[in-house]
């Protein structure tokens, strides 16, 4: 009877185990890379919106973030402006622009405009705007140069690592409170020195690296 397995089968078997392992690891790494890729994290890609609202135009006219994002200083959510806020101005100016048709329709029918979310953390993460705003973290630090975006995109991938980077050392990013809404603020050369001073002054509570405790964000 002929042999089913030749002696070389041993090597093939060993090699195939090895290749299978490599393949699995490569596959897992690949999955992880995809998971972290800018494509999946949706960075730098504007989303389709019902109205092509341009931050670049509106912010550069000197409209403050808080004119529209009214609750950013006192609550967890920044608030997306209601149709009424758009109509403050657009009932009178550019009132015939075809681009604004959905806004007028929403105003007349009372149906909400359905904006698509650009930033969206998983629901098991707790985030709060007011604490960051009141402790001197600028909008730019997390959202990038919104004032230059014709359509907002996600500047940061919003990984947990990213939150922790700052929570470990807020002094690297903190700025004077009156500069939080300033989109053109430049970090001074002595950021660390100033940062340490501001961390004390604003009572940033980070004794024993408290801000990296899991319960801070997963509560």
């Amino acid at each position, binding site marked *: 009877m002929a042999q089913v397995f030749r002696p070389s089968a041993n090597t093939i078997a060993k090699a195939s185990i090895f290749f299978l392992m490599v393949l699995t690891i490569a596959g897992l790494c690949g999955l992880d890379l995809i998971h972290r890729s800018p494509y999946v994290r949706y960075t730098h890609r504007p989303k389709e919106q019902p109205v092509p609202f341009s931050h670049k135009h509106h912010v550069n*006219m*000197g409209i*403050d973030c808080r004119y529209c994002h009214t609750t950013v200083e006192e609550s967890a959510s920044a608030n*997306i402006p209601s149709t009424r806020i758009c109509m403050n101005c657009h009932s*009178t*100016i550019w009132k015939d622009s075809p681009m604004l048709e959905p806004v007028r329709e929403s105003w007349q029918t009372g149906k909400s405009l*359905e904006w698509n979310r650009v930033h969206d953390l998983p*629901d098991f993460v707790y985030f709060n705007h007011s604490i960051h705003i009141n402790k001197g973290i600028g909008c730019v630090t997390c959202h990038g140069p919104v004032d230059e975006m014709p359509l907002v995109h996600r500047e940061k991938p919003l990984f947990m690592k990213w939150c922790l980077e700052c929570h470990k050392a807020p002094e690297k990013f903190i700025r004077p409170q009156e500069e939080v809404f300033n989109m053109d603020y430049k970090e001074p050369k002595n950021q660390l020195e100033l940062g340490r001073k501001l961390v004390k002054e604003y009572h940033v509570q980070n004794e024993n690296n408290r801000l990296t405790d899991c319960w801070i964000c997963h509560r």
Partner: protein
Amino acid sequence: MICLVSGSLLLFGNGCELRKRMYDQPKYEPLEQSDFFGDARSARALVEGTVPRGHLNEDMHLYEGKINGAFADTVPFPITKEVLKRGQNRYNIYCAVCHDRAGYGNGMIVQRGFKRPSSYHIDRLRKEKPGYLYDVINRGFGSMPSYSHQLNPEDRWAVVAYIRALQLSQSATLEDVPKQEREKLLTEKQ
């Protein structure tokens, strides 16, 4: 082998599904779309004709700027430096886009075609009562929209106080400057 592969695929698939459900839980986040309510809003408006507990807003002075039906000539709480600072801050966010930071009515939005408001520094507006200014913010005036949904009553009064400060600042004379400061001003000028 097939069992192992299909088993792990099943686990993986299940895991993904479970993870997705953790990412998007059945709770509503602020302003999230609802597929339960007909108008798709998860934030519900009050039933018409109802008043939330503690919001009867009976204080006509604070909420409407009126005393016995006439515009009040006082602000309903003491004006401190903090109140003025708050007023300045809110004014620069919500009003300066049209009225400009000094109140002459030459803001950016006006330059882009919005109706030009009167300057705050005309005689008529200087003499108007605080209650009248409050009423303009509260209910709007002509083509100016109401700001009652962007400013709470305390902030509206703070803005009124700040407008008064602006009006004073634009008609101030040397006599209004405290004595010690006056000397400093005069020496600086030379």
